């Protein structure tokens, strides 16, 4: 139950910020939603620590200890960023004022929802979609200020991360192929753990290299003008078969959007 609510509250916050009510109260709504999400995340983390795993929505959402840690971190960063945005965005929004502010908060909440969805979605293919959504939703947050530099950062960010995501998609397809050859049907993290010893070696290795090819984007730091916070992408839980085989390769600032 708590796990579902973690995803619902940011969506609710986004809808409210974009509604007429958000014209005056977008910032407090966002702060409230982010605070609730943080409290729920703590609850999920405690439950996951006690029972080992939390499921929700009939196995569509699942969260183990590592996932709970990521959820907790994202919720913490989200809550502090929301708090900081309250005073900051008002100054930065400029001429267009209220409407631009509203758009910012709408996107901010959706972005938070997509970040939280990455560690809790059970289906690996859906997790890929969530990772891709984090990019698309945050593109306009990166370019929020409309200056030459902000737009350049947004462009490079979108192109590089989409490129990485598409390569990762191929990796997931090959991994799925491998797990199907091994005879394990559900394409979830659980299923992959079961299938790992049976996946043909070359399949596993290739898919891992494609997934790691997208590693820079997962840890790419970014500056969202609203909060100037380094939001580090939650790291993808590594596919079981590549634990030993691949070193993690990540360049620190691949998108070059730091000023």
């Amino acid at each position, binding site marked *: 139950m708590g796990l579902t609510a973690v995803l619902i509250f940011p969506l609710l916050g986004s809808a409210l910020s974009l509604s007429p009510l958000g014209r005056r109260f977008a910032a407090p709504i966002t702060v409230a939603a982010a605070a609730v999400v943080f409290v729920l995340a703590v609850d999920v983390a405690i439950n996951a620590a006690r029972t080992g795993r939390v499921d929700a929505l009939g196995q569509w959402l699942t969260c183990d200890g590592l996932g709970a840690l990521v959820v907790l971190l994202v919720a913490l960063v989200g809550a502090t960023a929301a708090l900081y945005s309250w005073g900051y965005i008002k100054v930065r929004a400029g001429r267009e004022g209220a409407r631009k502010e509203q758009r910012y908060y709408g996107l901010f909440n959706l972005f938070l929802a997509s970040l939280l969805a990455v560690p809790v979605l059970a289906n690996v*293919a859906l997790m890929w979609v969530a990772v891709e959504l984090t990019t698309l939703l945050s593109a306009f947050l990166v370019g929020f200020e409309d200056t030459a530099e902000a737009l350049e950062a947004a462009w490079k960010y979108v192109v590089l991360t989409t490129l990485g995501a598409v390569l990762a998609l*191929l990796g997931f397809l090959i991994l799925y192929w491998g797990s199907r050859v091994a005879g394990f049907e559900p394409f979830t993290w659980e299923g992959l753990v079961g299938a790992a010893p049976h996946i043909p070696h070359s399949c596993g290795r290739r898919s891992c290299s494609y997934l790691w090819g997208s590693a820079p984007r997962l840890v790419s730091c970014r500056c969202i003008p609203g909060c100037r916070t380094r939001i580090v992408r939650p790291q993808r839980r590594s596919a079981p078969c590549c634990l030993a085989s691949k070193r993690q390769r990540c360049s620190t600032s691949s998108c070059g959007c730091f000023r």
Partner: protein
Amino acid sequence: MNDSPFPVIFALDALTGALFLLVGLGVVATRQVLASLQLFIAQSLLLSLSAVLLGIALGSLHLIAVAAITVATKTVMIPWVLRRTVSAEVYRTREIDRVLNIPSSLLIAAVLIVLAYWIANPILSAVDAPFARINLPLGLAAIFLGVFTVVVRREAVPQLLGLLALENGVFFAGVAIVPDLPVIAELAAAVDVPVVALVVGLLTRRIYTQLGTTSVGQLASLRER
């Protein structure tokens, strides 16, 4: 090559694959944005043709659905989105700014295609899947060509088309290796593609109104320190 149980469909799929690769080379080499877009549409049609062929051979309704989704999103929605957001860019006739000239781009592209076959070989020898023998290396080649297009073009819309061609490559390989991916994943991935086009298109328009250019290759004020 003739060990497949469906010789005719196998041959047709090979033909589709060859045309797919040829069109991919066209996306790298054309001078005009509109031609680039039309080639991309042709590539998407070839992708869905391949999906239909495989769907018939493997008796899989999934693949027919994939073909329908591809036609709907890539040949209808994406051109529509681009026309709504960056129509001036698409329809202006001028030569696209590029980093390398066309002959050297094509030479590098040829090397990339050979590389794709070399990389695909170990997987193919590990797993038995007749159609993957055609689709996987060609899909990989299209992926490399897509990345190469993004690198070699200096302007926004051609770079976007490179990205989309890259996505086509992934699906071209995908229809052969995972003919039974859950439909929800297919749908999500298919919805994702027009959204990418929309976001990039809107961003391009904003870059144009703010900076007066869409030569994103010249945006180079941000550097690593």
